[in-house]
């Protein structure tokens, strides 16, 4: 059996998560069978998770599974990473820059990063869509949106 078998690591991750759930349920208190406590369902759900994780592990050992490399071979694996980084950066700056500025910047970045759209198309889309969204949310649905340090929007 290969050590980079993804099924094996899925099973192990499941096992670790299950152990945490069992422990959490136990510390919350099981109560008794005629008066179950806050951790009762969580504890037993965790035990079931251990069982299913063991089945995944058994099947990984018996039948093998794809390797990490094979799952990311021939794909543009950097793209999801960049998108995640952009989303986190956007969320960090959302309240500081305000809804309009941050969404325009995010949209320009996404339009240019995922599969580059020409600047002549990307800029109008990146400005118009957040503007329409801002108008619908703020003016029509009366949802409060952050205007940021610059007070735009």
């Amino acid at each position: 059996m290969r050590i980079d078998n993804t099924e094996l690591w899925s099973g192990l991750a499941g096992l670790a998560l299950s152990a945490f759930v069992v422990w959490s349920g136990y510390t919350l208190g099981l109560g008794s069978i005629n008066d179950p406590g806050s951790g009762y369902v969580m504890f037993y759900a965790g035990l079931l998770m251990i069982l299913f994780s063991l089945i995944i592990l058994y099947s990984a050992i018996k039948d093998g599974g794809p390797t990490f490399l094979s799952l990311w071979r021939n794909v543009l694996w950097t793209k999801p990473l960049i998108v995640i980084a952009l989303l986190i950066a956007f969320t960090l700056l959302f309240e500081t820059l305000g809804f309009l500025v941050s969404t325009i910047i995010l949209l320009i970045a996404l339009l240019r990063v995922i599969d580059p759209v020409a600047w002549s198309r990307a800029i109008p889309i990146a400005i118009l869509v957040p503007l329409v969204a801002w108008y619908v949310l703020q003016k029509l649905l009366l949802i409060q949106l952050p205007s940021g340090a610059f007070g735009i929007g």
Partner: protein
Amino acid sequence: METLNLVAQGFGVALQPINLLHCFIGVFIGTLVGVLPGIGPVSAMSLLLPVTLAGTPESGIIMMAGIYYGAMYGGSTTSILVNIPGEAASVVTCIDGHQMAKQGRAGPALGISALGSFIAGTFAIILLMLIAPRLAEIAIAFGPAEYFSLMVLGLVMLTFLTQGSMAKALLMACLGLVLGLVGLDSINAQPRLTFGSIHFIDGIGIVPLVMGLFGVAEVLYNTEQSLKREVVSANISNMFPNKDDWKRSAGPIGRGTVLGFFLGVLPGGGAVVSTFASYALEKRLSSYPERFGKGVIEGVAGPEAANNAAAGGAFIPLMTLGIPPNVVMALLLGAFIIHGLQPGPLMIAQNPKLFWGIIASMYIGNLMLLVLNLPLIGMWVRLLKLPYNVLFPLILLFTIIGVYASGNNVFDIYVMIFFGITGYFMRKFGFEPAPLVLAFVLGPLLENNLRKALILSQGDLATFLQRPISAACLIIAVGLLLSPMLPTIRKKREVVALDSEAS
């Protein structure tokens, strides 16, 4: 006579201008998300969940329901013209629908799909109208044991029908159950898995969870692939099927309707599995099964009727028992709860205007969909030409807006990103998100009913087996859990297994 009076009362509600507008918005958005691959009814409904707060419960729920059955219509357009299912319930339509389009018969394929959907959708509403009130009367006698066992059956059935390893699906269901318990214990207000953060006191929001697992994860997964589309647009002016097409489609539409409706009612079943079942049935009954897959109209008519009938049938467990049979209905349950309503056996009696208003709106919505999908087909074809590199950034932006608008809280966006990353890895490693989401919604209900049942029976576990409905549900659930050990059933399960957005 009493039913007719109630239906008339329902039309009185559905025909109010504001409700007509919401119905139109719902079916329009439903068709839109059905047409666009990568965003399905689950994402659209969670995105619009906060918007329903602005109006009355009737208008909000009419709109949400419209998105669901509207997506069933729209999904077929993409399947037929692009050979990519617009949403999971249209996977089967690709097989013969796209072949028909390549042979220059895109018009009849789209036409029979819309007309078959309309017939099946209307029939399903009539059945829903006749069955739901009767079932609600019976469901009043249900106790916590029955509810608990029904929910267990629903979860087991969904995991049984989920693609890939059943152990993985069950692990996801358990994880969803645990995630659903995060927050204050409803009985003694003890905080659970909150990690000392006030953000988790009310639990994890369904909107960021669903948008992350379905919306963001879908985009992340697709950005690493080079997706190219070829849209068949020739010869779609003649939409009406000819006499021979009708003759060959009548049987499949009829059978697909009945099959779809009853599979839709089953907890854990739904639109996707009904399409596979209908296709398999038509192929088996056909005198020329070898032509299936090469562009026969029966392969489009049956599954399309089935998924629309199933969409109608899925309302029965939610409306009569308060148990959502699939992820979409779980979101609809969320919409009811947002408005302080609890669907279940008493809802039809206590809120007849709401129930009959929704039913009547579904009749009207089906008519609207016929107009949207026959004369206005050109509009959807143009939309299909929207490139992915523009579509994906827009989907991401709308998910962020939807999540922020649902709670006016930046923390929810972090939660969505977390579940987006989780969902991406889940897809990579072959874990389906549907059992997780359904268990997440059912989690608190399941726990509550289990604890109540144990308290009422003074800890006697036999209570679950002494009550016939509860015992039957548990026996079926155990049967389904053990059945993959039998090779013949395992093979059949692989054939009907659901796609990623199993709703």
